[in-house]
C-alpha cells in the first residue's frame, strides 16, 4: 500500500516539472483502470450470476 502511494505521489509530483508526462500518465492510468474494472466486473458477473440461470440449461 505504501509503495502504491509513493508511486502515486511520484506521478502527481510530475505535474509541476513534467506536465506533458503527467497528462499522458493521467490518460493512460484512467483508461487502463477502466478496462481492468470492466474485465473484473464481467468475470465476477459470470461467476456469480451465470451459474444461477439453471432454467436455460435445463431447457
Amino acid at each position: 500500500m505504501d509503495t502504491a502511494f509513493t508511486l502515486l505521489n511520484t506521478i502527481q509530483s510530475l505535474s509541476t516539472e513534467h506536465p506533458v508526462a503527467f497528462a499522458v500518465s493521467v490518460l493512460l492510468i484512467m483508461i487502463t483502470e477502466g478496462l481492468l474494472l470492466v474485465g473484473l466486473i464481467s468475470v465476477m458477473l459470470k461467476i456469480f450470476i451465470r451459474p444461477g440461470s439453471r432454467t436455460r440449461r435445463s431447457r
Partner: protein
Amino acid sequence: MPIEDVTSIAWLLVLLGFIVGTLSGFFGVGGAFIMTPALNILGFPIVYAIGTDLALMLGSSTVATIRHFRFGNVDIRLGIYMVLGTIVGVWLGKELVFFLLASGDAEMVIRLIYIILLFSLSAFMVYDYITFITRPHLQANKPNTESRGTHLSRRLRQIKLRPMVKLPASGIRQISLWVPLSIGVITGFLASFLGVGGGFIRMPALIYGLGVPTSVAVGTDLFEIIFSSAFGAFLYAMEGKVILLAAMILLLGASLGAQVGSYATRYVRGMRVRLYFALTIFFAGVSVTLKQLGVWHDIPLLSTIAGYLIVGVATIMMMIIVVKLILGLIAHHARGDHPA
C-alpha cells in the same frame, strides 16, 4: 489536496462515483453537472474538481461505452461524424465566448442561456412524454414508435445533399453526411459556449434531431464523451489540476455504477429514460439558478443549497435506476431467460 485528505474520504468518493457512474451509464452523459459541485462540497477547489471529474469521465465513459457496445447500442460511424462536427463547434463556441468576454457581460449571458436551455429541454421532453402516454394510438405501436423517428428527424432525412451515408446501427437507411456533422457542430458549439461537457445536449439532439433510438443515443453519446473528456483531462492535467488518486478512487465506484446504469437501459423503455432525464436536467436547472442567484446577490448559502440539491436528486435517481434494474432482472429470471 494531500493524499491523506483524499484517503480519509475514500468511501464517500466511491459512493459518489457510483451515483454519477449509474446516471452516466443510464443517460449517456458525463455527469459533470453533478460531480463538480459534489467534489466542491467535499473540499476540492473548483478548478481541481473540474480537472479530476474530467479524468474520471474518461474512465467511466470507457467502461459504459464497452458495456453499451456489447448491447449493440453504440453507432461508431455516427459517433465519429459527431466528433468531427463537435471539434468545429467547440472552436466556434470558444471564439464567441472570447468575443463576449471582450465586450464585458459574457458570464451573465452564458449563465442565462444555460439556465434557459436546461429548462426548455426539460419542458420539451416532459411534454413529449405526456403526449406519448396520452395518445392511445402511439402506445399501441410502442415497439415502432422509436424506429419511426421524430417529425424533425424525418424531415432531416429527406435532405438529399451528397454525400449520403448509411447508419444501420441507428436504424437510419440513408442520410446526408451534413446532417450528423451539423448536429455535431451545433452541440459542440453549445457545449463549448456554455463551458459544459455537452452530453445533456447531444443525447436529446440524437433522439429528436436524427431520430436515433434512445438506447443507441445513450451509447453513442458515451462513445463521444471518451474523446471530449480525454481532451479536457489532458488540458487540465497539463496545468496540474487533476488529483489522480481521487480520480482513481472515484472510478472504482463509477465503473460499477456505469455498468449498472448501462444494464438498466435494457429494462426501462426509451420514453421512460427520456422522462427521468428530463426530470434530472430540470433539477440541474434549478440548482444552476440557485447558484447564480447566490453569486448575483452575494448569498453563499444558496450555492451550498444548489450543490446539495443536485447531489440529492442524483442519489434519488440512482436509487430509481437500481430498483428498475433489480425488478427487470427478477422479471427476466421469472420468465426463464437471461440478459447478456
